[in-house]
């Protein structure tokens, strides 16, 4: 028989706050499930605005994730591998959106890309392109908020990866770009996947930056979180149903992370 492991007993001063903490995190979700108007769920989901908002959310979150991958993976490589000066400053700048209130991000984007903005006015004059209050603005706002999650995750994976594999590739005639494509990227693929899922989940839930920069127009910029907020003021039952959908998507994401990717990333 094995003896009880040392530290297996939780001291009361820790146990009570821990239990309260669990209750605090779980009870609101239970309340959501309890209060859900289960009899009319189908009806609510079929309402015209819901499908539209859900589709817009999924599409814009996916586009934001793709954009984050295209820009964020190379950025993570630079942060993890290059020896250039000012790298830690760069890392700090890149992670600012992680701690910045999203609504501030929205304001900042508006100031830069809005019609009167530094870049926005030029886009407007030169190409007649207006970004704010379009679906493009939704994707940009979500990318701004979510990309740091991907960058941090991929950078961590790159730092943990064994660089000797890259040395081997070099001795076999692979230049740095070939090495990146054929060796480094496959080695950190689990980290990239985990980062992409995190990024996607964060983009899906984006509210503050989106409503500030893209507004709240059904069909073009009204994503699920915005729809939930609006519905809560007019028809709370619809808000609950919409919240359930987002909860389901979040739980599915979590399961995906645990079983498919995180499991492989941490053998």
């Amino acid at each position, binding site marked *: 028989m094995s003896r009880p492991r040392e530290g297996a007993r939780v001291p009361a001063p820790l146990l009570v706050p821990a239990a309260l903490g669990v209750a605090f995190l779980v009870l609101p979700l239970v309340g959501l499930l309890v209060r859900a108007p289960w009899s009319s769920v189908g009806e609510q989901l079929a309402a015209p605005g819901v499908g539209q908002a859900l589709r817009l959310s999924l599409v814009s979150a996916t586009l934001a994730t793709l954009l984050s991958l295209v820009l964020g993976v190379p950025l993570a490589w630079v942060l993890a591998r290059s020896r250039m000066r000012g790298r830690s400053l760069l890392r700090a700048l890149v992670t600012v959106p992680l701690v910045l209130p999203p609504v501030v991000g929205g304001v900042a984007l508006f100031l830069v890309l809005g019609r009167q903005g530094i870049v926005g006015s030029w886009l407007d004059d030169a190409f007649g392109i207006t970004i704010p209050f379009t679906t493009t603005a939704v994707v940009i706002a979500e990318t701004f908020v979510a990309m740091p999650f991907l960058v941090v995750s991929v950078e961590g994976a790159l730092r943990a990866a064994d660089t000797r*594999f890259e*040395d081997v590739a*070099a*001795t*076999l*005639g692979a*230049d740095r770009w070939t090495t990146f494509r054929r*060796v480094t990227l496959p080695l950190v693929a689990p980290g990239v996947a985990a980062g992409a899922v995190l990024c996607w989940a964060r983009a899906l839930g984006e509210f503050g930056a989106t409503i500030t920069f893209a507004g709240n127009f059904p069909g073009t910029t009204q994503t699920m979180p915005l729809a939930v907020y609006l519905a809560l003021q007019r028809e709370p039952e619809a808000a609950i149903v919409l919240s359930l959908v987002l909860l389901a998507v979040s739980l599915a994401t979590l399961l995906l992370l645990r079983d498919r990717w995180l499991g492989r990333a941490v053998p």
Partner: protein
Amino acid sequence: MTLEASVAVRRGSLDLAVDLAVADGEVLAVLGPNGAGKSTLLRVLAGLLPPDGGRVAVDGTPWDDDGVHLPAHRRSLGMVFQDALLFPHLSVADNVGFGLRTRGVGRADRRAAADAWLGRVGLEGLGDRRPAELSGGQAQRAALARALVGAPALLLLDEPLSALDARTRLAVRAELRRHLGDFAGSTVLVTHDPVDAMALADRVVVVEDGRVVQTGTPDEVNRRPRTDYVARLAGLSLLAGTGQGRTVRLDGGGEVAVAEEAAGPVFAAVRPESVALYLSRPDGSPRNVWPARLVGATPHGATVRCELAGEVPLVADVTATAFAELGLVPGAEVWATVKASEVAVYRR
């Protein structure tokens, strides 16, 4: 395919300055303790680390020189590391064919070349496996095939056997020896294991603290070590002294009688098996009789290797039976004898 290198690297506490020349088909072993700078030297030869000074040239073409640094991927080389480092996301055959792929060889030709090399290293039919499904010895063989498949001018081996268990090491060493014999280019083998150096190399360079302290054939280095490190590796006791006729006066005090005339600064090397131990001073022929104290004893096959302290520090091998019969324990006072004809003497 000749390698000529003169490498200088200063990095932290490491100050490396080593000259090497390796001819076609020759295998040079760089032997030295950990931290001597061996692996750094190899990284410079591979182009993975630009040297602070010096020159690396293969067949007269400079790879490193003033203002020249050919990056690793443009050097014609193959390298095998201590761990096989097969790419875990590729099949064994794709690993072996990796270097051909970077050189633009087509898929079918790559596969054919990889399969041929897998056959040569005794891994027929394992090409479709994942590296994780190979044993340590198989993985190291595949790594060797991967390094050799492109027929490089220079083969670099960085402690290629030290991660293997003793039995596997024996088998892979024999195999490696065969492939090195067939290899037309120059080979540099870095190791801290003298057996690897003796078994695989045509010539040995001993590096300590970033400097070459001895060069020679494995046999020369083995029989006539010039530093304590090499002597210990070869299992010899190395005594430095001054020769006067058939006597060597040791720098540390005491004298050793030798069979040949010697003059000037010399080394006297004594093999452990030629040292005999007695509990009381023996009578008779041996001219070298020294009192000593047993300070350490470690089993070494069927014998016990005894470390002796005293005026003349020695290492003695006695059979386990004799060790028991003499009732030796650490701290025991003994008499050590060596025949004069068993002492090798050579100039310092």
